[in-house]
């Protein structure tokens, strides 16, 4: 599953591909309809979340079934700040989301990282659902199952309220979100290639040995948990204005399941895997939901298929095909 990124020619090739894809994505709204651009926008937000999630899952080996919680935290922060406190600066919203999510992740993480695998998954699920119940029941604060509205924020201080909604979303907001995604992906890449990243992978592959080499498994898992929580919050905060209304369903376990699905579908062993999964999922879901109301069945089937036959996801399949080509 490893591709020697250090090989310079391959590296240059990858950079070229990245640049081409980025330019394509940037220019997308210019030559496709508003609906597709809108979907892409939601993809950017999910991409950020899922890249953070994979730090925890693919690189540290912890499956969190409650990660949507942090996305919801980000989204609700955006809703709160815009509609309750009339704070409309997106940058402020992002920063506050990160702070809130990090504190929450730090607390929840302290409890959860002591456990592994199934216990960790169920604990995170429990926390996610706990938050769901909280959002649902405390309706004076959170708007209950109707949720809260998210007002249009200022981007970099610019007020866009004159611009019609879809145009804003597929224009300036699209660009804004894409740039943030690009920055965050760069940061994540740095993290993964750092000594810290190496320690995380060590913990994933053999926690006992890692411990003997002086790597505190619990502490590093905690760091990964907090970082991935922060990423999810940013994703959620960016998603909020796009969907206009936040509701408790954002932290329901199925939403966490969606994040897991995206990551698995695209391939959790690959840096870009989750992104591939995200795009495929979003467009697939849109198509399938318009065809039948039994989309859960189909997605369940796809998930089952992936788990059984293609655990490396799409990226895994591509990579093994490439290997076979070489030999």
């Amino acid at each position: 599953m490893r591709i020697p990124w250090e090989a310079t020619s391959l590296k240059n090739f990858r950079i070229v591909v990245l640049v081409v894809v980025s330019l394509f994505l940037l220019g997308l709204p210019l030559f496709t309809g508003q609906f597709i651009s809108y979907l892409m926008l939601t993809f950017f937000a999910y991409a950020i979340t899922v890249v953070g999630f994979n730090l925890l899952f693919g690189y540290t080996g912890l499956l969190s079934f409650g990660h949507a919680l942090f996305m919801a935290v980000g989204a609700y922060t955006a809703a709160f700040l815009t509609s309750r406190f009339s704070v409309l600066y997106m940058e402020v919203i992002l920063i506050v989301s990160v702070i809130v999510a990090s504190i929450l992740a730090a607390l929840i993480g302290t409890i959860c990282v002591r456990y592994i695998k199934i216990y960790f998954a169920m604990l995170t699920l429990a926390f996610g659902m706990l938050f769901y119940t909280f959002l649902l029941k405390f309706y004076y604060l959170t708007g209950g199952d109707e949720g809260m509205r998210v007002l249009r924020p200022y981007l970099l201080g610019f007020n866009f309220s004159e611009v019609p909604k879809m145009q804003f979303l597929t224009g300036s907001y699209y660009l804004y979100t894409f740039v943030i995604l690009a920055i965050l992906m760069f940061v994540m890449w740095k993290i993964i290639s750092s000594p810290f990243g190496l320690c995380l992978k060590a913990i994933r592959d053999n926690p006992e040995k890692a411990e003997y080499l002086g790597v505190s498994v619990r502490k590093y898992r905690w760091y990964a948990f907090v970082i991935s929580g922060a990423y999810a919050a940013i994703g959620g905060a960016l998603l909020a204005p796009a969907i206009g209304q936040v509701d408790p369903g954002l932290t329901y376990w199925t939403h966490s399941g969606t994040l897991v699905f995206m990551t698995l579908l695209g391939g959790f062993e690959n840096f870009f895997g989750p992104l591939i999964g995200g795009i495929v999922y979003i467009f697939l879901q849109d198509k399938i939901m318009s065809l039948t109301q039994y989309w859960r069945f189909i997605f369940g089937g796809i998930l089952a298929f992936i788990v059984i036959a293609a655990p490396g996801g799409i990226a895994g399949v591509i990579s093994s095909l490439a290997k076979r080509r070489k030999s």
Partner: protein
Amino acid sequence: MGITVVKVLVGGGMPTPLFILPLIVAGLLLGFIGPIFERGLIKFVYGRDETFQLLLTFAIVMMIEDIIKFIWGTSPQTTGGIDMVYGQLNVLGATVPVYNLIVIGCSFAIAILIGYILLNTRFGRIIRATADKREMSEALGINMTWVYVKVFTLGTILGTLGGALVIPAGAAVSEMGVELIVLAFAVVVIGGLGSMKGALVGALVVGILKSIAISTFPEIEMLTIYIIVIVVLVIKPQGLFGGGRV
């Protein structure tokens, strides 16, 4: 592993709102869906990480939820008060539907039966051995595949039966699956993985706490369960009686 199994099928057991005795029979029969799943799907993931097993379980739950929606529609199904058919009794000053007592009686009977099977029969001993040391058991000539199938079936039956019995006292909703999974998990966590005694105690604790919550603060019924799971996992990860590693 059996735990994961039961979780799946508890959700599946619900869509059989029929009359009382057929209820039990239907529950038992539906349990035999289990082997189909096991042979067809789950067997592929045994060798893998536990998390993959969990994921597969969730995938199946999702699929079942939609199958249920497809067959029975989305509105909650009830049995229209059939549970009252047996009348009520006055126990310790509270009126209790006889049906509930029947269910309690059944549960005890089943628990005792399972306990007996695990402790005293050859089959039971085999189950315990394989839970402990899989490779050793294989080396001793026990056909692992068959064991898994049988255990899975048993777990499934228990699940569907439990689901079927629960229905008359409440309503059946297709999303029940998840809630019941969390409850089942809470029971196992509290009681400790791998302990029959623990499962019993855990079930009692969960049941009682749930009732208390419903009567005092109806809104936070599920909240209480989640909090309990969290608290127990934090304080005593092995549960009250379990001995497994966490």
